[in-house]
């Protein structure tokens, strides 16, 4: 069995917000099923290995995003090829913004994204903060905590991750949250996102296994605690 390789992009500059939790959940849910896995940290200037099966990128401060955006641009075609060919990817908050067409920040002007997602983001005066509840066709109820002043909107065809039931989501207006393109997800949900939304975690793992060319059926795990925590968080939204 070949180990499932997760590339964690920019943990030094883009993991200010519980992002480690997302990677931990992916890794543990494979460990508990006896699926070998490996997390590689990719920093600015590092090469992205060719044999990765999943990409994760978290959130950072605006300042860090400028440096990261440049480095992402150098990896742009590799990341896009990966996603276009069905590679699973999860991006949260700042990472999500940088995978869109561009992000207009309040302090650093327009930061160019790699354009994987058909979205653009702009800094606004509204700070969108609080518990958030989302209904997703694919994953059911999703919970998290959002904290962003960048508002994201779709340009052209794009599929949202879900519809906002409580909170803001992509922006204060259209009640849509996140984006999903092929097997790549962008979202504003922290919390961390994956611990209380294990269906998304398992879906990502399934796609990674498939992408690695292996055929492993995922065993059911006891998610009683995950589900209780999600229900408790949903009540707070």
């Amino acid at each position: 069995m070949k180990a499932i390789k997760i590339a964690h992009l920019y943990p030094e500059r883009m993991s200010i917000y519980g992002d480690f939790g997302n990677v931990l959940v992916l890794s543990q849910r494979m460990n508990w099923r006896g699926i070998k896995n490996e997390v590689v940290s990719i920093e600015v200037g590092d090469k992205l290995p060719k044999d990765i099966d999943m990409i994760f990128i978290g959130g950072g401060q605006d300042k860090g995003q400028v440096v990261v955006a440049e480095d992402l641009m150098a990896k742009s075609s590799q990341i896009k090829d990966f996603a276009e060919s069905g590679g699973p990817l999860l991006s949260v908050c700042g990472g999500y913004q940088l995978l869109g067409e561009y992000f207009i920040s309040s302090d650093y002007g327009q930061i160019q994204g790699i354009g994987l997602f058909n979205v653009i983001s702009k800094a606004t005066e509204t700070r969108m903060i609080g518990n958030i509840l989302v209904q997703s066709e694919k994953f059911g109820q999703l919970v998290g905590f959002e904290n962003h002043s960048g508002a994201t909107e779709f340009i052209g065809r794009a599929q949202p991750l879900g519809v906002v039931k409580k909170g803001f989501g992509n922006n204060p207006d259209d009640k849509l949250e996140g984006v999903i393109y092929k097997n790549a997800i962008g979202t504003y949900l922290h919390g961390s996102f994956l611990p209380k939304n294990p269906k998304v975690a398992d879906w990502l793992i399934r796609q990674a296994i498939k992408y690695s060319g292996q055929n492993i059926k995922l065993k059911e795990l006891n998610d009683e605690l995950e589900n209780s925590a999600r229900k408790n968080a949903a009540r707070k939204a």
Partner: protein
Amino acid sequence: MRSLLAIIAAKVALKTNRITGSGGTALPGMLAQKLDKDILRKLVLKNFPKGIIVVTGTNGKTTTSRFIANILEEAGISYVHNRAGSNMERGLISTMAENTNLYGRVDADVALFEVDEAFMPKVCRAIEPDTIVVTNLFRDQLDRYGELDKIARSFRNLFEDLPNTKLGLNADDPLVASLGYKLENERKATYFGVGDYNGPKITNDHTADSIFDPFTQQKLHYTDRYFGHIGRYRGKRGGFTRPKPDFQANNVRQKGIENIKFDVNKTSKAIKLEMPGLFNVYNAIAAYSVAKICLDTDENSIISALNESSAVFGRSEQLNYLNREVVMLLIKNPTGLNQIIQTYLLKEKDRLLVFVINDNFADGRDISWLWDAAFEDLKGYRGKILVGGTRAYDMALRLKYAGLKGVSIESDENSLLKMIEKNSTRRSKIFILPTYTAMLSMRSKIAANDDKAKEFWQ
């Protein structure tokens, strides 16, 4: 006239608070501010002949302030000090109203205020402190404070607007140290730091927020990292680098969880803090610096004050609960929690651990930070863990993914206290790790059984 009315209103509200037994400190300040919006400035500026000291930073504000207060006492200097938790604008106004006469006069030489980072620009522009000390800057309640860089920028602008204020900065925190780099008119900050640390360290540290040169975004080179982004580092030649500390703690030696020893600049007598933890050495060396730069206190007073200091309200404070020894370890953010794990829990195998996690406004509404703390370092722990609070399920989930077993959930605090009793025996030692509002309520419930702790509430 306006300020007289404001003082009277605040005083009446303070009295009422005391009679009704409600501990709120914001309301009297709010009333006074409604009547006179410049009341804080008026009350502070015409008082305090020996100076106004402000302590800020993510972690260690309260303990550093307590150390400074003890030094002031030892040196026989009278002072006014805001209570733990009253560190926003209205809390400061309440503190002032409490200590002033009707003419706005305070009979004290020094004002010692700990100030919440978000309120620093507003409060300090009003009261123009003689000295500002910054302990450290870490990610903290991102829902309230926003990004760290923005806080740092607001501090930098504030410092340039207050050219006569003396600055005491942590040399070992790159973001804090950078606040004193190339200030206008060749103004120099005073730096404090730690020269060496060989005590226990956690291995799963995800809290290094500022390991880059804040001006060029180049990575700094660490020769020794103590925790988070705190340590000895250097930048590129000719650019920003770790400033040489004016006051440096050396020979840091920790003995169990009883105490920690160090000396200053290799010349002072040994200082022995009756509380463990490298973070407390930072708090002490910060207080030491303040005493040196603005109080002109003699060395012996400083050292004996530090030696005689005891833990502050909820911060490694020891209480008695039904003949069990309870240590209250307030947790607010991943760095603070990591320091507690590093100091108290790395060697623990079977002691009762109790986490109480609330998500009220004062705790921070967002609990994402639990995922950044180093619970993985507790992997050798085999004892019982109880979790409570409004976010008990999130805490239990975090422990599950850290691979810890033996976790029980009880959201209700009274039932949780019963579980604590059931899962421990007389004379056993229990560690309670609560968030802020959980600390207040757990502490008052435990205090109902402990006369020593009760005194605080009177």
